[in-house]
Structure formats: structure tokens, C-alpha cells
């Protein structure tokens, strides 16, 4: 187990370095930070001086090396746009994105799993067909259209929910959370649904497929033959056995959640990392973009490590084998 985790950690470092490298190589092409940092009237000579000061004229590999070694020493640099320390800017935004992502994921699981089970157990029911069709239409509309639609229906027309931002937040330690106030939850609902709808469909379809597969397995047939009560059969036997692939996909889709959180955050003006990243692209804020990507890679790696450990928790076969 320890060996396994260590091995994953080494691989994780590789993944993060590769992401940093790729990310860094892209910065040069996003645009020129200098023209974004300076005003209309700034002279070309002043711009050149700034460029030199920021080391933007250095060879790419030197810039990357500096970025990596600074980061390893815990120095994440300063934003070109706001001049603030990047570490602090990102850290301030992490809670918003994580809460959004986690709640979206929770919605997708809490709705997706029961829906998947239901549609698997009643494959020919009318409700099943309706659920399948609705979710299919749901994932076929681009996320940003869904977001705006939700805003106008629930925010503007009905006036039930806020249209933007995080609502009331509470500071807990260094973590700014919207999970402890009603306002916070109200603000979280629409973006989380927008972000979760794709995951929901995915989860539901996966659970459905796995469940239908598992329901045909020998041990389910055997449990049937033993007269194990149907509820127990469906949830304790069948559902538990569908969880391994579901967890795998959730781990893999984490990248997707983060990617689409960029869109969702932009639509809902949700002050998370994605919004920060979009602003940073607009302003060619290289340090922020770099750190953002590394942080995303870190979360991705972390989630997948957790997923691997969850396997072990769920599946006794993966625990160290006892005597035969």
C-alpha cells in the first residue's frame, strides 16, 4: 500500500511537471503581457524596459527553469495584472471553485445514482424513457446556454435565486465558505446545477449500464435464488458492485469538471479559479496562468490518488491478500 502510494506520488510529480512545462510553453503565444500591463500612452521604450525587467526576453527554457525553481521554493511570483502574490490570489479563489465543483459532483451523484438505478431496474418504463431523453437533451445544450437560461428563469423571471456571485460567505480559518449560510446555498445552486448537469447524465448512464450488467451476474442471480429481499439485492448487492467503475469515471472527469467550471464561473461571475484564469488569459497574466495550471494538475492527481485508495476501501479483493 505504501509502495503503491509512493509510486503514484512519483508519477504525480511527473504529471505536474509535464503540465507545468506544457502550460509554460503556451504562455509565449497567448499574447503580449506588456501591452496589457501598460496604458495607451506608454512609450515603446518604457514597454521594452518593463519587458526586460520581467525577464520576458529571456530564452524560454530559462523562464521555465526560473518558474519551476521559484515554485519549488514556494515562491509563486506576482501577478502582472494586479501585482498581488499569485499564491494568495489562487488560494483565495480555491474555496469557491472547490465548493462549486464538489457540490456539482454531489448533485450529480445524489441525482445521478438513484436515477441510474431506477432506469436500470425498469429499463422499459415510461419514466425511464423520459429521464433518459431529458438528460440527453440536457447534455446536448451547451453549458453556457443552460447557465444563462437558468439565470433568466430563476434569477430574473421568478426572482428566487441570485444571478451572480457567491452570496453570503463565512470565513472559517483561511477558507471562505458559502456552505454555512442560506444565501450562500442559494447562490451556489444554479451554478452547481449548470456544472453538474453533464456529470449527472454521465453518472446516471454509467450507473445504469453497470447496474444492468451486474444484475445479470451470477452472484446477483444466486442472491435472487436465495430469496434475498429485493431492496437489499438492488442496493447492497448490485449498487455496491457498480461503484468501482463509477468512482473511476468520477476521478477521470475531475479534469472535465474543472474545465467546465471555467465556463460556469464565467457565466455566473463565480469568483473561483476559473474566472481568475479567464481574466488572466485576457490580461496575459503569465504567473497566474502558470500556477493555476499546476494547481489544477495537483488536484487532478490528488483526486485520482483518492480514487485509487477508495477502490481499496470498497473492494476487499484489493486489500492485501490473506492466507488462502
Amino acid at each position, binding site marked *: 500500500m505504501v509502495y503503491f502510494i509512493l509510486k503514484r506520488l512519483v508519477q504525480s510529480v511527473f504529471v505536474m511537471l509535464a503540465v507545468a512545462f506544457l502550460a509554460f510553453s503556451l504562455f509565449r503565444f497567448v499574447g503580449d503581457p506588456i501591452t496589457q*500591463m501598460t*496604458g495607451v500612452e506608454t512609450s515603446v521604450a518604457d514597454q521594452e524596459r518593463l519587458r526586460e525587467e520581467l525577464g520576458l526576453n529571456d530564452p524560454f527554457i530559462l523562464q521555465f527553469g526560473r518558474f519551476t525553481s521559484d515554485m519549488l521554493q514556494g515562491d509563486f511570483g506576482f501577478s502582472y495584472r*494586479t501585482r498581488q502574490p499569485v499564491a494568495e490570489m489562487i488560494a483565495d479563489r480555491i474555496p469557491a471553485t472547490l465548493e462549486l465543483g464538489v457540490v456539482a459532483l454531489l448533485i450529480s451523484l445524489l441525482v445521478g445514482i438513484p436515477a441510474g438505478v431506477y432506469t436500470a431496474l425498469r429499463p422499459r418504463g415510461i419514466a425511464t424513457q423520459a429521464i433518459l431523453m431529458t438528460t440527453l437533451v440536457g447534455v446536448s445544450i451547451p453549458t453556457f446556454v443552460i447557465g*444563462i437560461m437558468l439565470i433568466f428563469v430563476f434569477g430574473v423571471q421568478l426572482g428566487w435565486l*441570485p444571478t451572480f456571485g457567491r452570496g453570503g460567505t463565512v470565513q472559517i480559518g483561511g477558507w471562505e465558505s458559502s456552505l454555512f449560510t442560506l444565501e450562500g446555498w442559494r447562490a451556489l445552486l444554479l451554478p452547481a446545477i449548470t456544472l453538474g448537469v453533464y456529470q449527472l447524465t454521465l453518472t446516471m448512464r454509467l450507473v445504469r449500464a453497470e447496474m444492468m450488467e451486474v444484475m445479470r451476474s451470477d452472484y446477483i442471480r444466486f442472491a435472487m435464488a436465495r430469496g434475498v429481499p429485493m431492496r437489499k439485492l438492488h442496493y447492497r448487492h448490485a449498487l455496491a458492485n457498480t461503484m468501482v467503475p463509477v468512482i473511476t469515471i468520477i476521478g477521470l472527469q475531475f479534469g472535465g469538471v474543472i474545465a467546465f467550471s471555467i465556463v460556469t464561473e464565467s457565466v455566473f*461571475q463565480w469568483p473561483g479559479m476559473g474566472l481568475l484564469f479567464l481574466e488572466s488569459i485576457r490580461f496575459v497574466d503569465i504567473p497566474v496562468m502558470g500556477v493555476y495550471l499546476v494547481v489544477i494538475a495537483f488536484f487532478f492527481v490528488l483526486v485520482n490518488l483518492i480514487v485509487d485508495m477508495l477502490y481499496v476501501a470498497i473492494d476487499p479483493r484489493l486489500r492485501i491478500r490473506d492466507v488462502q
Partner: protein
Amino acid sequence: MTRRNLRNSALLGSAVAFCAMGASAETLRWASTTDPQTMDPHAVNSAPVLSFLNNVYEGLVRRGQDMSIEPSLAASWEPLEGENGWRFNLREGVTFQDGAAFTAEDVMFSYQRASNEAADVRSWFAPVSEVRVVDDFTIDFVTAAPNPLFPDSIANFMILDKDWAESNDAALPARDAENFATMNVNGTGPFTLSSRDPGVRTTLVPNGGWWDDAQHNVTEAVFTPIGNSATGLAALLSGEIDFIQPIPLQDVAQVEGRDGFKVLEGEETRVIMFGFGHEHDALLYSTDVTDSNPFADPRVRLAAAHAIDIDSIDRVLFRGKIEAASQLVPAGISGFSEANQDRPAYDPARAKELLAEAGYPDGFSFGLKCPNDRYINDEALCRAAASMFAAVGLDAELSTGPVRDYWPQLREDDFDMYLLGWSPGTFDMEHPIRFLMHSQDDEKKLGSWNFGNYSNARVDELLPQIQQEIDPAARQAMIDEVIAITQEEVAYIPLYTQPLIWAAKDNVDLTQRADNFFMLRWVTVN
């Protein structure tokens, strides 16, 4: 540390605001597309920063509701005698928000700070050769040459408290790392910062010790950047914000049609125009003319101007809210050439004739570059223009992109024709002549946005004279000559003045200034 405290108080503030929603009429919540990058008035010369900080800091002079220059921290000013420059007599009894007294030392300090290499606003002081503190409340700005417009050009030059800045290690603007002034303020203006969460929420509260009479009744102002225009509009319509600048043109009818909301429409001072690669030897993006540059011929440029149907653009794209432009500043700006108010009419037939005369009876193809996130409807405008050019045989290869790599492309001469919007920072015609019409001259820092390097010796000759001429009539005559030349040669195709469209709740009274600055001191919430 300070930031944390601010943040916490913001939480309290917002919680209170929410509870009191509707009851506390004096809280103003407003939104705009871009967050001010910094609270340092000298670090970045950008409209969001200057607009926001004008509520907190003040300059020696300020602009009134009609954009006119009026006394602010300088109670009066007059030209120096015996040398070029201006003397400013400072207002006495003004204190900074932390209680420190305002004196000429602070102006001197602010000048040094703002003209330092680390400051992005230093170009304002290019004409200044020396600054002298005469006494506590008198300061002289000496210029190398006569400079009648100098007071107008420093309306956004904001004064910091010397002691405050120095004791907080903010004597220079933050260049590559933050300093105290990035997140904290200490101005003399009507409002002061109570909390700031960059990119999320910034809260201002009135400065009780402001020297001027407060015309507003705002007790708290909360600013939120909302980048997505549909979201911003939704926030206004759902009542979560009281005011937003700007809203998309096409949504005006929707807002006006709803009870309790109003739209404020005005003209910004920004003129949108097409520019040409005048000095290119050949077209870069042409498929048929690759060995010469048709745009070097004024007849071709005039043909392009005649191809534009500005009325249709106005009607369809801008819903009748733009004013066609004949020159690079809108009417009403000082120096506007009354004598040259005609613009080339929409006349495709004439355009074709001109092209034939110039040797391109079948037209030619070329590359048109446009930003897609800089001006109102910029991309749609370019598509429409491309379609209009195509109608006379000018086959435009349209290429649009975000402004972050648009400027670099223009700087690298990577265009045949391009779109540009220009707002005269000094609200005077001299500004676009200096930046857009004078030939490129890095040494003198002239023509720095004249990407196509339009060059006319007479214009180059006239600019210094215009800058130095004190007599308004003589000055206007020279400007008229420049405008006549550039219109004759079709240096640019001025299209229209960009509209300014704000939306607010009915109960908010505010003033829409032509520079798109939102001044809280004129806001009343009923």
C-alpha cells in the same frame, strides 16, 4: 494583514447590506465589466483604474459633468510668467482620508512618483522639465515648450500623501510585486475604500472629511465586476445591482420596457475608425495583389470610405445609437474642426470608379484585422464592413481576435487594414494628432499609435505649433489644416462615435460623463 481585516469587515458589510436590502436606500451596488487592476493611481494608465480611483483620489484639477476642467485640489492656476509652464495655487485645509494635511510636498511627491520609470502614467509629464514647490500651497510645473493644454492633460493625475506612501513602503508604484498602495488607499476624494476583494467585490464608503460639499446621498457603494454582459443585465433586472455600465446595445429595449429601470444613453468620446498600412510595400494578405500596396493610393482609401454604409450600420448593428464621425474626435471636443464636418458619403458606384481609376477595376483582396473584445460590436462591425467592401470589389479577409494579441499584431505591422478606436485622453484634438497622425517617431514619442505610419510632412510640422499655440483661433486654424489634409488623403476612415449606454434602476440618479467614468459624487438614490 490589512487585507484580511478589510475582508472580514466586508463580510460584515455585505451581510448587513443583504439584511437591509430595499430598506437602506443609500447603498449603491454597481457593476462594470472590468475590475480595476490596482488601487495605485500611478501604476496603470487604464480607464477602469482611473475611473474607479477618481472617486477616491483627486487631482489638481477635475472634470465636471460636462467634461469641463474645474478646480479641485488646485483652487486656481495661471501660466508662469517669464517661462513656459503653469503655477497651481493649492486648496488649503484639505486633509487626506487618514487625517494628514494636504500640501505642495504631497503634489511634488506625487509628481515624482507618477513620473518615475515604474509609473505607467509618466507620459503625462513628458512636457514637464521641472517642478518647483514655491510654498506649502503653491507649486510650479515648468514645461520645455509652451503648453496651453497642460492643466487639461493632468485631470487624472492623482495626489497621494507623501508620508503615508513613504512610511508604507509605497514610494514608488508597484511594478512586479505588490506594495501597500496596491490594496490600500489614502486620497482626498469623496469616498474611501472600506474593503477590497480583487475581482470579486470592492466597497467604498463616503469620506466624512471631504473638503467639497457632498452632492450624493450614498452611504456605501459596492462594486462588482461582471464580465459576462448577459449575467450583468440579469443581475440588474433581478434587482441585485442598482446600476451597470455598460449594457449591450441590443438589450436597451428590454431594459426600457421593464418597470423600474432606465437606460442612460450618451456619446462616448471614442471614435471608431479604420486605419491603413500606408507605408507597406505590398499587401500581406492579398491573394491577387502581392507586389504592391493599393492602399498607398489615396483614391483606393477614398473608395473604401465610400463603400461604407454608415446608416445601415447605425440602424442594424447599433439600433440608431451612433453618430457618424468625420474626424478623429467627436463634435464638442476642443479642437473639433467645424470646417471639415463632411464625411465621404455611401456611394458604391463612386467607390468602384475610384478603384478603376487607381488601376483596380476588379478590386483586390486584402487582410482586415479587428479586435473582438475591445469595442462595442467590434466584430459585427467588421463583418458588416467586410460585406460592404466586398460589394465594391474590395475582398476583405477578415481576421478577428482578442485584444491581448491584437495590439502586438498591430505593433508588428501585421495588417493591411485595421480597426481602431480612439478616445482623446486630454479631450482635445491635439491628442489624436499626436498619437495617430504624426509620423512614427520613437525618439520624441510621437505617432506611437500610428500603426500604418501615415506620414505627412506638413502635419508633422504643424503638431509642435499646435501644442504650443496659446491663441485659440490660430490654433484652431492649424488644426483645421491638419484635418483637411488628413481628410483629403484619407489617412483614416473615421466611422462613428461609440455610444455610451448605462442602465440603472429608476430610483438612482446619476450623471453619465462622456469619458465613461462613473462618479459616485453625483449619485443620489431615492
